[in-house]
């Protein structure tokens, strides 16, 4: 074995390409970096392929990578594509790491070879609910989610958790792109007395909601919060100072935290491959790197002969003293045959007046989440 292909399929163009293109860059750069560092005894053939957010393309890429090029691990992307591909992944036994942190991807059936690199959206949201419960007993919470499987995913777990935490979910609303005016939505939530608004969405719709909340003078009255894909640089760029005080749950370190080794590595690799400053700053760039890093580490640990089985072995042995910690996330990446979430630890961060996110909690896991959604 001389070369092994490390392949990613995701949206570089089409919907969500704002996240996808940075993610692709992260995968590709880390892979090339691994080659330059001779991390493995073999040379990696780094392939990122645009599937245009189209599931048929994703499946085709999977067939080509797994069927023809015998890749030992598949790096995927979108919620829909990953849900659709679960059966084949199970059949081919090729470990797969999505960029979507949809909990349904690792729920049974056909979940043995699906691994989320970081905590799921559901866990993000439940952690936010815990934070709310700690601040205010019996608080009223509203959920605003993207009108897609991606957005609807955490609703069930959120309801369960809220019930146990003594919180009241006043409303669940679907809001997608082009929400140029959210007056009605916000006024209604205000009328319901919802004080905490939790978002599961992409940054664009959230930014519009925040701007309208600011205009309507609701920013002080309502606490806006959101899961991984709502926050970060993207939100700052779109919402500006309307993002102030937004609380965000994510497992990743921030670009500003330059003292973290993982972030230093991101900067170094980004510079090495001549990426734009904007790309390097993006949390999706870091996410892409994490996925690639996990895959490469699993190859390394799986033994001399790199196969799907060896990677699976390498992945599922990442626990206890053998946990993997590339430094991109606030906790180590752990997997086992039962545990299919990598870096479960997450932090809540809050945006300051300039829209920069600062941690307001230490790394932690959501205890409630383990109760409402036990491992299956």
């Amino acid at each position, binding site marked *: 074995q001389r070369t092994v292909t490390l392949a990613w399929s995701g949206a*570089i*163009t089409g*919907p969500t*390409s*704002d996240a*996808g*293109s*940075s993610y692709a860059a992260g995968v590709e750069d880390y892979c090339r970096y691994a080659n330059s560092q001779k991390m493995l005894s073999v040379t990696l053939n780094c392939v990122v392929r645009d599937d245009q957010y189209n599931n048929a393309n994703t499946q085709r890429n999977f067939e080509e990578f797994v069927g023809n090029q015998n890749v030992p691990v598949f790096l995927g992307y979108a919620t829909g594509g990953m849900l659709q591909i679960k059966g084949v992944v199970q059949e081919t036994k090729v470990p797969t790491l999505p960029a979507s942190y949809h909990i349904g991807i690792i729920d049974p059936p056909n979940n043995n070879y699906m691994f989320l690199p970081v905590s799921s959206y559901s866990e993000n949201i439940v952690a936010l609910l815990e934070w709310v419960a700690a601040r205010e007993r019996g608080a009223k919470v509203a959920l605003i989610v993207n*009108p897609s499987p991606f957005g*609807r995913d955490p609703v069930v777990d959120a309801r369960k958790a809220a019930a146990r935490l003594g919180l009241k979910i006043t*409303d*669940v*609303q*679907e*809001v*997608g*792109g*082009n929400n*140029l*005016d959210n*007056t*009605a*939505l916000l*006024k*209604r939530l205000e*009328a319901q007395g919802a004080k905490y608004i939790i978002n599961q969405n992409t*940054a*664009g719709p959230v*930014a*519009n909601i925040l*701007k309208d909340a600011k*205009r*309507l*003078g609701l920013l002080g009255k309502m606490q806006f919060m959101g899961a991984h894909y709502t926050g970060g640089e*993207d939100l700052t*760029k*779109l*919402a*500006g100072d309307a993002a102030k005080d937004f609380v965000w749950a994510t497992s990743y370190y921030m670009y500003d935290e330059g003292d973290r080794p993982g972030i230093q590595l991101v900067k170094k690799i980004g510079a090495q491959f001549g990426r*734009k400053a*904007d790309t390097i700053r993006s949390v999706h760039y870091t996410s892409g790197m994490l996925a690639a890093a996990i895959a490469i580490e699993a190859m390394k640990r799986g033994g001399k002969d790199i196969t799907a089985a060896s990677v699976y072995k390498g992945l599922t042995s990442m626990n206890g003293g053998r946990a993997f910690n590339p430094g991109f996330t606030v906790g180590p990446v752990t997997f086992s045959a039962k545990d299919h979430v990598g870096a479960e630890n997450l932090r809540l961060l809050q945006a300051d007046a300039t829209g920069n996110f600062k941690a307001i909690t230490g790394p932690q896991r959501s205890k409630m989440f383990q109760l409402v959604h036990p491992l299956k």
Partner: protein
Amino acid sequence: MNLLPQLLIAGVVIGSIYALAALGFVLIYKSSRVINFAHGQIIATGAFIAFALTQRGLNFWLAGLIAMLVTFGLGLLIERVFLRRMVGEPIISVIMVTIGLSSVIEGLIHLTPYGAGNFSFTAPAVLSGEGLSVLGTQLSRTQLAGVLAALALLGGFTYFFNKSTLGITMRAVADDQMAAMSVGTSVERVFALAWAAAALTAAAAGVILGLMSGLTLGGLAGIGLKVFPVVILGGLDSVIGAIVGGMLIGVLENLAAGYLDGLVPGGGTREVFPFIVLIAVLLLRPYGLFGTKEIERV
């Protein structure tokens, strides 16, 4: 506090932004009977040109103005290169050309640094100051600017189409190209002008939308779809219809969000409600509220 007046105000405001976005669409249809599926992409182009200029240190207003001029040229170019050849082809072909163009323009924007990513204007001080409170609804200055721009452009074009010789000629061309040629009208020039004017108003809409919701390719281009219920409701070829349709859709959306969302699990009714209204309107008044009724005599 009563919700209804607030919903109405907000609906009218957002509706006039829709109207502004729809205006270019109407201009093209009015003179050439072409439904332009690339309108959203032209809006995005205008917005990104303005943004790119401000990034290079240009004053916001100047950047907006230049963007409008550049897209004016772009409109001319699109007409000259792509649509002129399509004169006389079946309408579905022409529509499909605009669908193709929407893809081409998106591809081209992807070739710039703005294809993937989120950006936003730094609004000039005039626009970022305290807004205005109308009947308990707080309106931002950006929104007010949008409403003013929409009303000014719509008023101007209404006058143009009804009173000026060129405006009448543009309508004549839509009616019967051959007959228009027989009295010396240069049909090509009329089409070019319509596309250019449409692109110009699209740029204006793009800048305002960009100010309101930030700049992402998908978001800006997606407005192209929102425009459909507006123009169908108002009538595809009516400038007045665009503004009335825009406001009605804005209001209907807000009423849906205000009153229906609570009744439907998951809500999000504002996404479909305009389209349901659209179908209802089509069935009752197949040519919209102000559209020209097709004259059919056998």
